[in-house]
């Protein structure tokens, strides 16, 4: 190409973006890795270089400005210590893996062994055959139809993570705790899970884990396997970060994922789910509550590729003090996916007039015999409901609290373990009591 060729402003911008990304990536050393992993990382760099880092002007980022997420350095913000309530999941008997500011803390963690599970760390990975086929693979698959450059950046540069292979039915949850001790820290973690046919496990995650975090999970759920996933990101007001959950479900496989997000300055949770075998079921739910300088973005994409599958997206946000909630959700039903049952609901409860909810719900259907519904609403507490409760003697604050919890109830229904659901309920209640 010669300089004389006229380019549109759009093409010129893209060229500049790609060049900036390539220059930046050329300076980023990839973490020391065995051959297979290095190749996977190089593949991710190539994907990233081909699309460039995201910009606010991208359609896919129209509601959420990615600038702080891709800035060369993380923000420096006060460390938030929770002293007034026990940490999440403290009551649960679990296998605990602790990362502090993105660095594995062996002393605080349990030994990496349990019946029915193989666990190892990405930073210590040697030739783990099952993970070689997965690391970066689901992320690569998720680059279409919309590029997810932050996920590729994570695959390229993740410093650690856990690699979990589940072979049996495991009762005791694996719990990954992200703690933060430094004012400025960047956690880039990448987990890979493979659930072998018929296996079952519960994965718990909690804590923001760093001033800025990027956590990618690639999850392969084989025929008839079941993954329960509960994640909380709580109370650290200044944190920013992204998560990407990429899940592929085989025939009859089940996924139930619930995320609780409170506070946080800027969080984007992306989920990409592929239903690749007959009769699978995926439920992705999220409850988010924010007050003031808070933006929480749920971006969800469920692709039905096989018949007789069911999927649910249930996302609810409680916003006040000028907080912003974002939902971008899609159900894509490909031609072979007959008898798909797809459901999507995204709702926000605005506790004042300054807060706002931005939603883009989408359905795209190529099969003719499917049942899909979606709905998105944004509103205030219902005055008639509030009056009814107060007329029975329930004080206004308590009545509002009951109604907000009622609003969120549909998300909590997606948690199978009642003790964990109850813990989440108490967290929500605690937050509401602190933010009247």
């Amino acid at each position: 190409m010669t300089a004389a060729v006229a380019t549109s402003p759009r093409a010129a911008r893209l060229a500049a973006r790609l060049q900036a990304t390539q220059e930046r990536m050329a300076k980023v050393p990839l973490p020391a890795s065995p051959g297979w992993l290095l190749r996977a990382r190089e593949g991710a760099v190539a994907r990233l270089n081909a699309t460039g880092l995201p910009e606010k002007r991208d359609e896919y980022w129209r509601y959420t400005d990615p600038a702080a997420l891709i800035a060369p350095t993380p923000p420096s913000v006060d460390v938030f210590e929770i002293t007034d309530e026990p940490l999440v999941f403290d009551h649960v008997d679990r296998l605990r893996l602790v990362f502090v500011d993105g660095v594995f803390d062996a002393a605080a963690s349990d030994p990496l062994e349990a019946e029915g599970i193989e666990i190892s760390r990405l930073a210590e990975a040697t030739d783990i055959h099952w993970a070689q086929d997965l690391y970066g693979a689901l992320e690569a698959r998720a680059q279409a139809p919309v590029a997810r450059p932050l996920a590729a950046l994570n695959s390229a540069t993740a410093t650690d993570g856990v690699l979990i292979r589940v072979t049996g039915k495991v009762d005791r949850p694996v719990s990954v705790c992200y703690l933060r001790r430094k004012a400025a820290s960047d956690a880039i973690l990448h987990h890979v899970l493979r659930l072998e046919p018929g296996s079952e496990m519960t994965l718990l995650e909690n804590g923001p884990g760093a001033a800025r975090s990027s956590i990618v999970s690639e999850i392969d759920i084989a025929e008839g396997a079941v993954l329960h996933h509960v994640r909380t990101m709580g109370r650290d007001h200044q944190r920013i970060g992204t998560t990407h959950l990429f899940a592929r479900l085989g025939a009859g496989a089940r996924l139930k994922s619930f995320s609780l997000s409170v506070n946080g300055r800027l969080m984007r949770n992306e989920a990409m789910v592929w239903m690749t075998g007959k009769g699978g079921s995926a439920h992705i739910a999220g409850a988010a509550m924010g007050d003031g300088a808070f933006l929480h973005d749920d971006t969800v994409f469920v692709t039905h590729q096989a018949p007789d599958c069911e999927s649910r997206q249930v996302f609810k946000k409680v916003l006040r003090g000028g907080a912003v909630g974002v939902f971008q959700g899609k159900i894509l039903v490909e031609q072979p996916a007959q008898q798909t049952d797809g459901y999507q609901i995204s709702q926000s409860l605005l506790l004042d007039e300054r807060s706002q909810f931005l939603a883009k719900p989408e359905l795209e259907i190529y099969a003719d015999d499917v049942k899909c519904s979606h709905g998105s609403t944004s509103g205030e507490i219902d005055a008639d409901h509030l009056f009814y409760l107060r007329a029975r003697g329930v004080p206004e604050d308590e009545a509002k609290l009951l109604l907000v919890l009622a609003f969120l109830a549909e998300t909590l229904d997606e948690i199978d373990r009642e003790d964990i659901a109850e813990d989440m309920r108490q967290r929500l209640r605690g937050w509401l009591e602190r933010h009247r």
Partner: protein
Amino acid sequence: MLEINNLHVKLENENKEILKGLTLSVEAGSVHAIMGPNGSGKSTLSYVLAGRDGYTVTDGSATLDGESLLDMEPEERAAAGLFLAFQYPVEIPGVGNMTFLRTAVNAQRKARGEAELSAGDFLKLVRAKAKTLKIDAEMLKRPVNVGFSGGEKKRNEILQMAMLEPRMCILDETDSGLDVDAMKLVSEGVNALRDAGRAFLVITHYQRLLDHIKPDVVHIMANGRIVKTGGPDLALEVEKNGYADILAEVSA
């Protein structure tokens, strides 16, 4: 017990007066009935007494045991002993009936300086009262009024009343939507609560409810005012002849 004097109420957002100098006095131990044509302001009166938003009191007073109701929050009125069985009880998805009832009972006890009921005692009490109203345990587990039939909602109102034991009970068309058997159940529920320290204000269109809940006094309300007050016979007269005669008589 309940003293309403020259009450004038307009809509907050509209220059429309609905109650136009209403005066009414209900003494402890008695049952008063209010009848009146559609749109005469009966529900508005009940809402204003219970403290619903959207109305402006421009004149007059309403007191319960000498205390002005109109200055209190809705929950304070409830704690003071006022109860309104709604004409149209709302459905509240996501709030369990039991959680709601227990929160309400304990909030009122707390406001009155009484000890809260333990979970066990509460459960026993609810079950016993629900049984007499033929409300089955499964219904109690559902969210407040969600999926209840019209009659079930009304029975649920009476269950709440039985649990809260208010002293001034206002029933707004509790009989509408009830079948004959349910009407008997509800009336029995009300009659069981009748005592010297408690009063009822029963809003209804039909004599039939008053066959079961025998009123001491019957008021006719029209155009935002009580236009005639009499004994139980007045209800029979309305049942037989409608309102035309009475309204003609008072405007004459």
